[in-house]
Protein backbone atom coordinates (compact mmCIF):
# COMPACT_ATOMS: atom_id res chain seq x y z
CA UNK A 1 0.00 0.00 0.00
CA UNK A 2 1.37 3.39 -1.05
CA UNK A 3 2.02 5.86 1.77
CA UNK A 4 0.10 9.01 0.81
CA UNK A 5 0.95 11.08 3.91
CA UNK A 6 3.48 13.86 3.28
CA UNK A 7 4.44 17.31 4.51
CA UNK A 8 2.83 20.32 2.85
CA UNK A 9 6.08 21.27 1.12
CA UNK A 10 6.62 17.72 -0.17
CA UNK A 11 2.99 17.64 -1.33
CA UNK A 12 3.17 20.80 -3.46
CA UNK A 13 6.63 20.00 -4.84
CA UNK A 14 4.96 18.48 -7.92
CA UNK A 15 3.24 21.77 -8.81
CA UNK A 16 5.05 23.82 -11.44
CA UNK A 17 4.70 27.31 -12.95
CA UNK A 18 1.69 27.66 -15.21
CA UNK A 19 -0.35 24.92 -13.54
CA UNK A 20 -4.14 25.01 -13.35
CA UNK A 21 -5.19 24.46 -9.75
CA UNK A 22 -8.60 24.04 -8.17
CA UNK A 23 -8.80 25.23 -4.58
CA UNK A 24 -11.69 24.26 -2.33
CA UNK A 25 -13.46 26.61 0.03
CA UNK A 26 -16.06 29.34 0.20
CA UNK A 27 -14.77 32.62 1.56
CA UNK A 28 -11.82 30.72 3.08
CA UNK A 29 -14.19 28.35 4.95
CA UNK A 30 -13.01 24.94 3.74
CA UNK A 31 -9.86 26.25 2.04
CA UNK A 32 -6.68 24.22 2.75
CA UNK A 33 -4.61 26.97 4.37
CA UNK A 34 -1.50 24.89 4.93
CA UNK A 35 -1.37 23.96 1.27
CA UNK A 36 -1.84 27.59 0.18
CA UNK A 37 1.02 28.57 2.52
CA UNK A 38 3.22 25.89 0.97
CA UNK A 39 2.37 27.18 -2.52
CA UNK A 40 3.34 30.68 -1.41
CA UNK A 41 6.66 29.35 -0.10
CA UNK A 42 7.28 27.47 -3.35
CA UNK A 43 6.39 30.72 -5.14
CA UNK A 44 5.23 29.08 -8.38
CA UNK A 45 3.95 31.68 -10.87
CA UNK A 46 1.46 32.14 -13.69
CA UNK A 47 -1.10 29.93 -12.02
CA UNK A 48 -4.68 29.51 -13.17
CA UNK A 49 -6.73 29.24 -10.01
CA UNK A 50 -10.26 27.83 -10.01
CA UNK A 51 -12.03 28.67 -6.77
CA UNK A 52 -15.49 29.80 -5.70
CA UNK A 53 -14.15 33.24 -4.78
CA UNK A 54 -11.00 35.28 -4.31
CA UNK A 55 -10.99 34.91 -0.54
CA UNK A 56 -10.01 38.03 1.37
CA UNK A 57 -6.84 40.11 0.93
CA UNK A 58 -4.07 37.93 2.34
CA UNK A 59 -6.45 35.10 3.19
CA UNK A 60 -7.20 31.88 1.29
CA UNK A 61 -6.37 32.17 -2.41
CA UNK A 62 -6.04 35.91 -1.68
CA UNK A 63 -2.55 35.06 -0.42
CA UNK A 64 -1.57 33.74 -3.84
CA UNK A 65 -3.02 36.87 -5.42
CA UNK A 66 -1.16 39.23 -3.08
CA UNK A 67 2.02 37.31 -3.81
CA UNK A 68 1.56 37.80 -7.56
CA UNK A 69 1.27 34.10 -8.35
CA UNK A 70 -2.10 34.12 -10.16
CA UNK A 71 -2.37 34.87 -13.86
CA UNK A 72 -5.97 33.77 -14.34
CA UNK A 73 -8.69 33.48 -11.73
CA UNK A 74 -11.85 31.51 -12.49
CA UNK A 75 -14.44 32.20 -9.79
CA UNK A 76 -18.06 33.13 -9.12
CA UNK A 77 -17.53 36.04 -6.74
CA UNK A 78 -14.57 38.32 -6.17
CA UNK A 79 -16.22 41.32 -4.52
CA UNK A 80 -14.81 40.82 -1.03
CA UNK A 81 -11.21 41.02 -2.20
CA UNK A 82 -10.58 44.50 -3.67
CA UNK A 83 -7.16 43.40 -4.88
CA UNK A 84 -8.89 41.53 -7.71
CA UNK A 85 -10.29 44.74 -9.22
CA UNK A 86 -6.96 46.50 -8.71
CA UNK A 87 -5.05 43.81 -10.52
CA UNK A 88 -7.64 43.47 -13.28
CA UNK A 89 -7.31 47.20 -14.01
CA UNK A 90 -3.58 47.65 -13.50
CA UNK A 91 -1.47 49.18 -16.28
CA UNK A 92 1.52 47.04 -15.31
CA UNK A 93 1.18 44.27 -17.87
CA UNK A 94 2.97 41.61 -15.81
CA UNK A 95 0.72 42.20 -12.79
CA UNK A 96 -2.47 42.03 -14.83
CA UNK A 97 -5.02 39.48 -13.68
CA UNK A 98 -7.44 37.80 -16.02
CA UNK A 99 -10.65 37.08 -14.18
CA UNK A 100 -13.34 34.75 -15.54
CA UNK A 101 -16.64 34.93 -13.67
CA UNK A 102 -18.99 31.93 -13.67
CA UNK A 103 -22.35 31.57 -11.91
CA UNK A 104 -21.77 29.56 -8.75
CA UNK A 105 -24.14 26.73 -9.61
CA UNK A 106 -22.67 26.47 -13.09
CA UNK A 107 -19.16 26.44 -11.65
CA UNK A 108 -20.13 23.55 -9.37
CA UNK A 109 -21.84 21.64 -12.17
CA UNK A 110 -18.99 22.17 -14.66
CA UNK A 111 -16.49 20.79 -12.15
CA UNK A 112 -18.82 17.88 -11.45
CA UNK A 113 -19.14 17.23 -15.20
CA UNK A 114 -15.36 16.90 -15.47
CA UNK A 115 -15.32 14.60 -12.46
CA UNK A 116 -18.11 12.38 -13.76
CA UNK A 117 -17.18 12.16 -17.45
CA UNK A 118 -20.07 14.17 -18.82
CA UNK A 119 -19.42 16.11 -22.03
CA UNK A 120 -21.43 19.02 -20.72
CA UNK A 121 -24.66 19.98 -19.00
CA UNK A 122 -27.61 22.17 -19.96
CA UNK A 123 -28.45 24.88 -17.44
CA UNK A 124 -31.10 27.60 -17.57
CA UNK A 125 -28.76 29.84 -15.56
CA UNK A 126 -27.27 32.69 -17.59
CA UNK A 127 -29.68 32.50 -20.53
CA UNK A 128 -30.19 36.00 -21.94
CA UNK A 129 -27.21 37.43 -20.05
CA UNK A 130 -23.59 38.12 -20.97
CA UNK A 131 -22.77 34.71 -19.46
CA UNK A 132 -24.40 33.22 -22.58
CA UNK A 133 -22.00 34.97 -24.96
CA UNK A 134 -20.26 32.49 -27.24
CA UNK A 135 -22.18 29.55 -25.82
CA UNK A 136 -24.51 27.15 -27.58
CA UNK A 137 -28.17 27.56 -26.61
CA UNK A 138 -30.39 24.46 -26.79
CA UNK A 139 -34.15 24.50 -26.53
CA UNK A 140 -35.65 21.57 -24.63
CA UNK A 141 -39.45 21.48 -24.30
CA UNK A 142 -39.72 25.18 -25.16
CA UNK A 143 -37.22 26.27 -22.54
CA UNK A 144 -33.76 27.60 -23.35
CA UNK A 145 -30.59 26.24 -21.77
CA UNK A 146 -26.91 27.04 -22.07
CA UNK A 147 -24.54 24.23 -22.91
CA UNK A 148 -21.82 24.47 -20.28
CA UNK A 149 -18.65 22.40 -20.66
CA UNK A 150 -16.60 20.43 -18.13
CA UNK A 151 -13.96 22.29 -16.13
CA UNK A 152 -10.91 20.31 -15.08
CA UNK A 153 -7.52 21.03 -13.60
CA UNK A 154 -4.01 19.68 -13.18
CA UNK A 155 -4.23 19.84 -9.41
CA UNK A 156 -6.85 20.15 -6.72
CA UNK A 157 -6.05 21.40 -3.24
CA UNK A 158 -8.86 20.37 -0.97
CA UNK A 159 -9.50 20.63 2.74
CA UNK A 160 -10.80 17.81 4.89
CA UNK A 161 -11.81 17.51 8.51
CA UNK A 162 -10.96 13.83 9.01
CA UNK A 163 -9.05 11.74 6.46
CA UNK A 164 -7.95 8.12 6.68
CA UNK A 165 -4.61 7.03 5.29
CA UNK A 166 -6.25 5.83 2.08
CA UNK A 167 -7.60 9.34 1.54
CA UNK A 168 -11.27 8.80 2.43
CA UNK A 169 -12.37 12.20 3.68
CA UNK A 170 -15.16 13.66 5.79
CA UNK A 171 -15.94 17.38 5.83
CA UNK A 172 -17.52 19.19 8.76
CA UNK A 173 -20.24 21.79 8.39
CA UNK A 174 -20.07 24.15 5.43
CA UNK A 175 -16.39 23.38 4.77
CA UNK A 176 -17.65 20.79 2.29
CA UNK A 177 -18.70 23.18 -0.54
CA UNK A 178 -16.53 22.65 -3.66
CA UNK A 179 -14.06 20.21 -2.09
CA UNK A 180 -15.71 16.88 -2.98
CA UNK A 181 -16.42 18.08 -6.54
CA UNK A 182 -12.85 19.21 -7.16
CA UNK A 183 -11.45 15.94 -5.80
CA UNK A 184 -12.69 14.17 -8.94
CA UNK A 185 -11.88 16.84 -11.49
CA UNK A 186 -8.11 17.15 -11.20
CA UNK A 187 -5.26 14.91 -12.31
CA UNK A 188 -3.53 15.14 -8.94
CA UNK A 189 -5.34 15.73 -5.67
CA UNK A 190 -3.80 16.90 -2.40
CA UNK A 191 -5.92 17.02 0.72
CA UNK A 192 -4.95 19.18 3.68
CA UNK A 193 -6.80 17.73 6.63
CA UNK A 194 -7.29 18.40 10.33
CA UNK A 195 -6.99 14.81 11.46
CA UNK A 196 -5.40 11.75 9.86
CA UNK A 197 -6.74 8.41 11.07
CA UNK A 198 -6.09 4.76 10.30
CA UNK A 199 -7.92 2.96 7.50
CA UNK A 200 -11.10 1.41 8.85
CA UNK A 201 -11.77 4.07 11.47
CA UNK A 202 -14.35 5.93 9.37
CA UNK A 203 -17.97 4.80 9.03
CA UNK A 204 -18.35 3.93 5.31
CA UNK A 205 -21.81 5.55 5.29
CA UNK A 206 -20.46 8.96 6.29
CA UNK A 207 -17.47 9.41 3.99
CA UNK A 208 -17.87 12.30 1.54
CA UNK A 209 -14.85 11.77 -0.72
CA UNK A 210 -13.40 8.40 -1.68
CA UNK A 211 -9.70 7.83 -1.17
CA UNK A 212 -9.37 6.72 -4.79
CA UNK A 213 -9.34 10.42 -5.73
CA UNK A 214 -6.63 11.39 -3.26
CA UNK A 215 -2.94 11.29 -4.18
CA UNK A 216 -1.44 13.01 -1.17
CA UNK A 217 -2.57 13.63 2.41
CA UNK A 218 -1.18 16.44 4.56
CA UNK A 219 -2.16 16.66 8.21
CA UNK A 220 -2.11 19.74 10.43
CA UNK A 221 -4.92 21.76 8.88
CA UNK A 222 -6.72 23.87 11.49
Amino acid at each position, binding site marked *: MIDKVKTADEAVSVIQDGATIMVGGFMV*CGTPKILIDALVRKNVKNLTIICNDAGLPGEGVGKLLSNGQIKTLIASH*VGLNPEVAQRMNTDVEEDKLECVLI*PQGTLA*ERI*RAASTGLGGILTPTGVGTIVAEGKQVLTIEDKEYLLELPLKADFALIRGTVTDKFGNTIY*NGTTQNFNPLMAGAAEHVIVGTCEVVEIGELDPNTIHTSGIFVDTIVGGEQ
Partner: protein
Amino acid sequence: MSDAKAIIAQRVAKDLKDGNVVNLGIGLPTMVVNYLPEDVHIIFQSENGMMGMGPAAEESCKDLDIMNAGAGYVTATPGAMFFDSATSFGIIRGGHVDATVLGALQVDRHGNLASWIIPGKMVPGMGGSMDLVVGAKKVIIAMQHTQKGAHKILDQCTLPYTAVKVVDEIVTEMGVMAVTPDGLLLTEYNPEYTVEQIQEATGTPLIISPDLKPML
Protein backbone atom coordinates in the same frame (compact mmCIF):
# COMPACT_ATOMS: atom_id res chain seq x y z
CA MET B 1 -33.21 55.23 5.69
CA SER B 2 -32.95 52.34 8.16
CA ASP B 3 -36.66 52.88 8.68
CA ALA B 4 -37.18 52.19 4.97
CA LYS B 5 -35.23 48.96 5.28
CA ALA B 6 -37.26 47.90 8.29
CA ILE B 7 -40.52 48.51 6.40
CA ILE B 8 -39.30 46.45 3.46
CA ALA B 9 -38.07 43.56 5.60
CA GLN B 10 -41.28 43.56 7.62
CA ARG B 11 -43.41 43.41 4.48
CA VAL B 12 -41.36 40.65 2.84
CA ALA B 13 -41.73 38.57 6.00
CA LYS B 14 -45.48 38.41 5.34
CA ASP B 15 -44.79 36.66 2.01
CA LEU B 16 -43.11 33.71 3.64
CA LYS B 17 -45.34 30.82 4.69
CA ASP B 18 -44.87 28.16 7.35
CA GLY B 19 -42.67 25.36 6.04
CA ASN B 20 -41.26 27.36 3.12
CA VAL B 21 -37.68 26.78 2.01
CA VAL B 22 -36.17 30.24 1.61
CA ASN B 23 -32.84 31.68 0.53
CA LEU B 24 -32.16 35.24 1.68
CA GLY B 25 -29.56 37.40 -0.04
CA ILE B 26 -26.91 39.36 1.79
CA GLY B 27 -27.79 42.73 3.39
CA LEU B 28 -31.36 43.94 3.61
CA PRO B 29 -32.96 40.54 2.83
CA THR B 30 -31.26 39.06 5.90
CA MET B 31 -33.33 41.44 8.07
CA VAL B 32 -36.50 39.60 7.05
CA VAL B 33 -35.75 36.99 9.71
CA ASN B 34 -36.43 39.56 12.44
CA TYR B 35 -40.06 39.99 11.39
CA LEU B 36 -41.29 36.43 11.08
CA PRO B 37 -44.27 35.55 13.29
CA GLU B 38 -43.54 32.96 15.97
CA ASP B 39 -45.75 30.32 14.35
CA VAL B 40 -44.09 30.61 10.94
CA HIS B 41 -41.17 28.23 10.69
CA ILE B 42 -39.02 28.87 7.66
CA ILE B 43 -36.28 26.50 6.53
CA PHE B 44 -33.42 28.72 5.47
CA GLN B 45 -31.06 27.49 2.81
CA SER B 46 -27.57 28.92 2.49
CA GLU B 47 -26.14 28.29 -0.95
CA ASN B 48 -22.65 27.55 0.36
CA GLY B 49 -24.02 24.25 1.59
CA MET B 50 -26.62 24.21 4.33
CA MET B 51 -30.30 23.54 4.83
CA GLY B 52 -31.76 24.70 8.14
CA MET B 53 -29.52 27.67 8.83
CA GLY B 54 -30.13 29.31 12.19
CA PRO B 55 -29.32 32.78 13.56
CA ALA B 56 -25.83 34.27 13.55
CA ALA B 57 -23.45 32.51 15.96
CA GLU B 58 -22.49 34.33 19.13
CA GLU B 59 -18.85 35.31 19.13
CA SER B 60 -18.07 33.18 22.19
CA CYS B 61 -19.33 29.92 20.72
CA LYS B 62 -18.97 30.24 16.98
CA ASP B 63 -17.96 27.19 14.94
CA LEU B 64 -15.43 28.20 12.29
CA ASP B 65 -16.70 25.37 10.07
CA ILE B 66 -20.24 26.78 9.85
CA MET B 67 -20.55 29.88 7.72
CA ASN B 68 -23.30 31.43 5.61
CA ALA B 69 -22.94 32.65 2.03
CA GLY B 70 -22.17 36.14 3.30
CA ALA B 71 -19.12 34.82 5.16
CA GLY B 72 -20.76 35.25 8.56
CA TYR B 73 -20.61 32.57 11.24
CA VAL B 74 -24.03 31.08 11.81
CA THR B 75 -25.72 28.30 13.73
CA ALA B 76 -27.46 25.16 12.52
CA THR B 77 -31.03 24.51 13.62
CA PRO B 78 -32.14 21.05 14.76
CA GLY B 79 -32.81 19.07 11.58
CA ALA B 80 -30.16 20.95 9.60
CA MET B 81 -28.12 19.29 6.87
CA PHE B 82 -24.82 20.17 5.21
CA PHE B 83 -24.02 19.40 1.57
CA ASP B 84 -21.64 20.23 -1.26
CA SER B 85 -22.08 23.05 -3.78
CA ALA B 86 -23.45 20.86 -6.58
CA THR B 87 -26.14 19.50 -4.27
CA SER B 88 -26.84 23.01 -2.99
CA PHE B 89 -27.35 24.47 -6.43
CA GLY B 90 -29.18 21.34 -7.50
CA ILE B 91 -31.71 22.20 -4.80
CA ILE B 92 -31.84 25.79 -6.05
CA ARG B 93 -31.92 25.12 -9.80
CA GLY B 94 -34.26 22.19 -9.36
CA GLY B 95 -37.05 24.36 -8.03
CA HIS B 96 -36.88 23.13 -4.45
CA VAL B 97 -36.49 26.61 -2.95
CA ASP B 98 -39.90 28.23 -2.45
CA ALA B 99 -38.66 31.81 -2.40
CA THR B 100 -35.52 33.87 -2.68
CA VAL B 101 -35.27 37.44 -1.49
CA LEU B 102 -32.57 39.53 -3.12
CA GLY B 103 -31.54 43.13 -3.60
CA ALA B 104 -31.12 44.70 -7.05
CA LEU B 105 -29.50 47.50 -8.98
CA GLN B 106 -32.38 47.62 -11.46
CA VAL B 107 -35.61 45.73 -12.12
CA ASP B 108 -37.87 46.28 -15.09
CA ARG B 109 -41.51 45.77 -15.97
CA HIS B 110 -40.71 42.49 -17.74
CA GLY B 111 -39.29 41.03 -14.56
CA ASN B 112 -35.74 41.39 -15.85
CA LEU B 113 -33.17 41.82 -13.12
CA ALA B 114 -29.78 43.60 -13.03
CA SER B 115 -27.86 43.09 -9.82
CA TRP B 116 -24.33 41.93 -10.37
CA ILE B 117 -22.24 44.29 -12.41
CA ILE B 118 -21.77 47.96 -13.25
CA PRO B 119 -19.45 47.74 -16.26
CA GLY B 120 -16.20 49.60 -15.77
CA LYS B 121 -17.06 50.37 -12.16
CA MET B 122 -17.96 47.34 -10.08
CA VAL B 123 -17.45 43.68 -11.01
CA PRO B 124 -18.05 41.66 -7.87
CA GLY B 125 -19.29 38.62 -9.77
CA MET B 126 -22.69 37.02 -9.79
CA GLY B 127 -21.97 34.47 -7.07
CA GLY B 128 -25.09 32.35 -6.66
CA SER B 129 -27.57 35.05 -7.69
CA MET B 130 -28.06 33.95 -11.31
CA ASP B 131 -28.93 30.42 -10.22
CA LEU B 132 -31.15 31.60 -7.38
CA VAL B 133 -33.39 33.82 -9.50
CA VAL B 134 -33.68 31.23 -12.25
CA GLY B 135 -34.36 28.37 -9.86
CA ALA B 136 -36.45 29.66 -6.96
CA LYS B 137 -40.21 29.28 -7.29
CA LYS B 138 -40.78 32.89 -6.23
CA VAL B 139 -38.29 35.72 -6.71
CA ILE B 140 -38.85 38.69 -4.43
CA ILE B 141 -36.73 41.79 -4.93
CA ALA B 142 -36.37 43.71 -1.68
CA MET B 143 -34.77 47.13 -2.19
CA GLN B 144 -35.19 50.82 -1.69
CA HIS B 145 -37.40 52.30 -4.37
CA THR B 146 -34.79 54.65 -5.81
CA GLN B 147 -31.02 55.07 -5.67
CA LYS B 148 -30.63 58.61 -4.26
CA GLY B 149 -33.60 59.67 -6.35
CA ALA B 150 -32.56 57.85 -9.51
CA HIS B 151 -35.03 55.27 -10.83
CA LYS B 152 -34.22 51.62 -10.18
CA ILE B 153 -37.58 50.29 -11.37
CA LEU B 154 -37.61 50.76 -15.12
CA ASP B 155 -39.25 50.04 -18.45
CA GLN B 156 -36.06 48.23 -19.40
CA CYS B 157 -32.90 47.55 -17.42
CA THR B 158 -29.84 49.42 -18.73
CA LEU B 159 -27.28 47.40 -16.77
CA PRO B 160 -26.36 43.83 -17.75
CA TYR B 161 -28.95 41.28 -16.71
CA THR B 162 -28.65 38.81 -13.89
CA ALA B 163 -31.54 37.01 -15.57
CA VAL B 164 -34.51 37.77 -17.79
CA LYS B 165 -38.18 37.49 -16.84
CA VAL B 166 -37.60 36.04 -13.41
CA VAL B 167 -38.84 38.60 -10.87
CA ASP B 168 -42.26 37.90 -9.37
CA GLU B 169 -42.56 40.73 -6.87
CA ILE B 170 -40.81 43.95 -5.90
CA VAL B 171 -41.04 45.19 -2.32
CA THR B 172 -39.80 48.70 -1.54
CA GLU B 173 -40.45 51.20 1.24
CA MET B 174 -43.10 52.72 -1.02
CA GLY B 175 -45.11 49.66 -1.94
CA VAL B 176 -45.44 46.19 -3.37
CA MET B 177 -45.45 45.56 -7.12
CA ALA B 178 -46.27 42.32 -8.90
CA VAL B 179 -44.75 41.60 -12.31
CA THR B 180 -47.60 40.86 -14.74
CA PRO B 181 -47.68 40.35 -18.52
CA ASP B 182 -49.09 43.88 -18.77
CA GLY B 183 -46.44 45.52 -16.61
CA LEU B 184 -45.99 46.26 -12.92
CA LEU B 185 -49.13 46.05 -10.79
CA LEU B 186 -49.06 48.13 -7.61
CA THR B 187 -50.93 45.93 -5.13
CA GLU B 188 -49.97 47.58 -1.85
CA TYR B 189 -48.63 50.98 -0.90
CA ASN B 190 -47.10 52.74 2.05
CA PRO B 191 -49.65 55.35 3.22
CA GLU B 192 -46.79 57.78 3.89
CA TYR B 193 -46.70 58.26 0.12
CA THR B 194 -49.36 59.10 -2.44
CA VAL B 195 -49.80 56.90 -5.47
CA GLU B 196 -48.58 59.86 -7.52
CA GLN B 197 -45.36 60.04 -5.51
CA ILE B 198 -44.81 56.30 -5.98
CA GLN B 199 -45.40 56.60 -9.72
CA GLU B 200 -43.00 59.53 -9.89
CA ALA B 201 -40.28 57.45 -8.19
CA THR B 202 -40.83 54.66 -10.74
CA GLY B 203 -39.40 54.59 -14.26
CA THR B 204 -42.24 52.61 -15.78
CA PRO B 205 -46.03 53.12 -15.71
CA LEU B 206 -47.62 51.39 -12.73
CA ILE B 207 -50.96 49.63 -13.06
CA ILE B 208 -52.89 50.43 -9.91
CA SER B 209 -54.67 47.40 -8.49
CA PRO B 210 -58.41 47.88 -7.90
CA ASP B 211 -57.72 46.15 -4.57
CA LEU B 212 -54.87 48.48 -3.63
CA LYS B 213 -54.30 48.37 0.12
CA PRO B 214 -51.77 49.54 2.70
CA MET B 215 -48.63 47.42 2.75
CA LEU B 216 -48.36 46.79 6.50
